[in-house]
């Protein structure tokens, strides 16, 4: 990974939302995404692309993401990922 992160969580399992659990991973291990979703077959790859994009955009190349999707739109996935990443960044005030 390019930056030091700690385990974090964002989102809920309410309808239209997605629960993201973000964990650090060994350097060089890449991004691993475990996704559960009622629309896994149809939109699973798209959801993973969005998750990957946000991580890359924030300079995170090694991480384990556990995502429990409840029908979230892309904008919601991006928002929950950003919150999880903010919370995961060490040494920053992220809850304000």
């Amino acid at each position: 990974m390019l930056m030091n992160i700690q385990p974090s969580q964002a989102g809920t399992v309410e309808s239209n939302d997605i629960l993201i659990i973000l964990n650090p991973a060994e350097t060089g291990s890449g991004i691993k995404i475990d996704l559960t979703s009622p629309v896994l077959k149809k939109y699973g790859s798209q959801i993973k692309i969005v998750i990957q994009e946000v991580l890359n955009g924030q300079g995170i190349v090694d991480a384990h993401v556990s995502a429990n999707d409840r029908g979230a739109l892309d904008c919601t996935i991006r928002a929950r990922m950003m919150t999880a990443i903010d919370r995961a960044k060490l040494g920053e005030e992220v809850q304000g």
Partner: protein
Amino acid sequence: MKLRRTMMFVPGNNPGMLINAGIYGADTIIFDLEDSVAISEKDAARHLVYNAMKSIKYPCEVAVRINHISTPFGYKDLETILPVKPDLIRLPKAETAADIEEIDVIITAAEIKHGFASGSIKMMAAIETARGVRNAYEIAAASPRMVAIAIGGEDFLADLQTSRTKDGKEFHSARGQLILAAREAGIHAIDTVFGDVSNEEDFIAETIRIKEMGFDGKSVVNPRQINIVHQIYMPTTKEVEHAERVIAAYKESLDRKSGVVSLNGKMIDVPVVKRAERALAYANAAGRNNRRANL
């Protein structure tokens, strides 16, 4: 004429509500980062509102209620939200003109930074304390960005050390002063929410009362309340027809360069014309006036 009959609060940390907020027909939707969001979720709500506004085209005016700038959250709210250009920033618990002026400076800097037209992001303030009521005009007139002041209900009642009554006498003085301040400043006055969504009878009575007092609209907390408010603000057919006759007579007199206008023997002056324009604006918004008078 911009109408703000209904301003609907939408909790900022609820994706389903944020996504669907535009479909209910409210004149304004207010994405809330303040009271409806738990302190531990302020960061999450900011990201959600930012991303929703960035990707969804809402068919109505979009406001964001930020946390007060005296809290640890207010500045961060502005920093996150201003780049997606909300139509309105709503400040809660406004007590002085300085509150407004400080946010105005931040908005001005954001408009320059992001290349938005100068003055395109408007402001409104909720007045929720006795001190705020006393300073209502100064708050209303503190910036050219100000388009409305609203009365915030529960906090105001706590400050006043009273509680809700059926006929709203606890709000009587504050509502009166708010209307006067808004009118003097030339901006909208918006009434407080009515939280008991199941009590339609008292909601209707309160909305009729505040319309008669001169309020331009009401804050609502549930989509079910929107049509009720719009119905109450809808002019009758007789009022619309009279307004159309007034406007026609006024236009005719302008064409004739006549100083005096009369309709059915009654003199029509500017206040009468303005009232007619207001009635037609409400009728047009409600779709009642099919002829769509050119205002």
